[in-house]
């Protein structure tokens, strides 16, 4: 589904990603862990199409096509979804309006009928149960005045409504208490199936108690220093990232 080959990227002249290789197949959940500044969020941002990042080398194939050539909205229409580390507040735009516009944009792109207000509302109310969100959130402006936990749940709600093929969760666990963490993780697990895939970017192991990854990759200084299964996450938890920083093995090829 996703194939990242020798990806290099920089931000304002600083090279952050220095040769990432990663392969994600349908049905898989990959966790990307790493210390602050290792390039985790840069990787997520490059995949989502944030123009802050400049790709200098390498390629990313998504379902056989060059992902980096697609505009961010096209990526979303093609099924790529990023849950933001810091969801953006949009005063003046209601959550319903926003979600409906997004869903219909994607459906239109796929040549499907657009949802009318009634159908949309029943769909979105159904999905809200998944993230234990009160329907009153629908009339509130997007993320405006939401708590940290509410914002993250709103991200998962969007994910549930838009039903992506590839989800990238950028530090979705940051700033969450244990209840919110459980709700968010339950949402992600419920949406996971054999056809889709997720990349879970996180600093801490604790999210992985709830979302069980098939693979864990440790990102250090812009490269994947080590890959393994979920046991690797426990190892990191015990030994800290300093241990990983000392790894001198070359970046492993795609798993």
């Amino acid at each position: 589904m996703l194939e990242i080959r020798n990806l290099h990227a920089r931000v304002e002249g600083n090279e952050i990603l220095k040769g990432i290789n990663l392969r994600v197949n349908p049905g898989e959940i990959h966790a990307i862990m790493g210390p602050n500044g290792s390039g985790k969020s840069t990787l997520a941002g490059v995949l989502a199409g944030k123009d802050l990042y400049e790709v200098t080398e390498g390629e990313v194939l998504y379902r056989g096509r060059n992902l980096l050539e697609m505009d961010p909205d096209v990526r979303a229409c093609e099924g790529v979804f990023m849950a933001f580390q810091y969801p953006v507040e949009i005063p003046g735009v209601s959550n319903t309006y926003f979600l409906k516009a997004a869903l219909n944009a994607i459906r239109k792109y796929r040549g499907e009928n657009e949802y009318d207000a009634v159908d949309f509302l029943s769909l979105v109310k159904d999905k809200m149960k998944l993230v234990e969100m009160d329907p009153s959130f629908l009339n509130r402006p997007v993320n405006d005045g939401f708590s940290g936990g509410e914002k993250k749940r709103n991200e998962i709600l969007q994910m549930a409504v838009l039903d992506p093929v590839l989800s990238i969760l950028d530090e979705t666990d940051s700033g969450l208490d244990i209840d919110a963490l459980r709700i968010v993780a339950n949402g992600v697990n419920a949406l996971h199936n054999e056809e889709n895939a997720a990349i879970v970017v996180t600093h801490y192991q604790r999210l992985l108690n709830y979302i069980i990854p098939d693979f864990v990759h440790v990102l250090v200084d812009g490269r994947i220093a080590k890959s393994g299964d979920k046991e690797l996450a426990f190892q990191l938890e015990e030994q800290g990232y300093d241990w990983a920083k000392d790894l001198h093995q070359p970046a492993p090829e795609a798993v």
Partner: protein
Amino acid sequence: MKKEQMKVYQKQFSAFEATLNGASEGRVHQLRRDAMQRFVEQGFPAARDEDWRYTNLNPLTGTTFVPAFRPVADQSLRDQAAAQALPLTHAVTLLFVDGYFVPELSDLDAIPEGMTVRDLSAVIDEDPSLTDSVVTESGTLSRHPFTALNTAFTQQGISIHLRRGVIAEIPLRLLFHSTSGTQPHIAHPRIVVRLEERAECRIFEEYVADNSAVYFNNVVVDVHIAANAVLKHVRLQEESENAFHVSTVYAQIAQAGVYENHYFGLGASLLRSNLHGILQGEGAHCTMNGLFLPFGTQHMDHFTVIDHAVPRCTSHELYKGVLSDETRGVFTGRIIVRQDAQQTNAMQSNNNLLLSDTARVDTRPQLEIYADDVKCTHGATVGRISKEQLFYLLSRGINRQQAQNILTFAFAGELVSRIPDTTLSDLMHDRIHKRLEASWKTT
């Protein structure tokens, strides 16, 4: 050029006098003569005048306008106006064509009980004792040459009077339609609104025109709000793209009275809107909301004054501009708190969104506070579409054009939702939406 221009207006004034026959001897006409003299002495405002600093009037003063003809009442005029206007069905509509009130084409039968609507010239002719309350030349406005010019030619216009305690449920719409003629024409409509104690009504003033008509609408609105009366005044200015529009609203608000002004500016090549609210009685309130959306090369200048003359009054002002292409916007927000006006509460903000690199806006909050126990806040911003918000929408599959529209409307929509009439608010919503989409397309 200035002298020649004055000669043109003087000539028009003489011609106007000649049409008045016997009516040129009364007290009203003395006011007209005085006003004309003042106008001739002052001339049009110069760029060195601080209050006109950002607006070049040359395109206006350099155009020779002929007085508009009184239209012949024909149903087709109403149809033409309706074709341009908002499809509002629940209002009582009074039609004005080229500045002239056309009673034959107005819904005079539907005027609510307790409200009197009359042609201003008839009121002036019949009852000279009303002169002072009808044709005010009070305060700073008397020094305003456009008001003087309007007063000099005062005849076209209307007097609206609401009796004590009357609450008019149905809004009144004043629909001004300007037609295209062979020569640029000038009109001086005068609207006088008087609310007696505890009276309440909503007035929707709407300006529309034939496409690309060239004319100058020099409008003056006098508003008198008695104690505990409430006027909610919504104005939509959608003049032709070649039109000149100068409007001056002067509202005097008595004790515990409320005046709300909601302005929406879409049209005219050159606009100057003067809005003065005078809080004259304790506990009075004034709201000024405005949204201006110039595109192409339109120039829109908004000059607002809220005068807190007595204690314990409140005012709330929010103006927003969305500027595209090579447009120019100006906002001046003057708040005067007189020495006696203790415990004043005044809030003002002006926020502007620039959609292009070539648009420009000048914003000037001006606070003159002479009392010490007051609460005054003001703020002004000029910004662009947030990149973070834009990316957030894009990342959810919404294309760039739609995302820009959504964010622009998110900025502007607040003012639409404050319109004190849900039907009108919905219609305005659609109109503004359309306009914003068009703005992005040309930027």
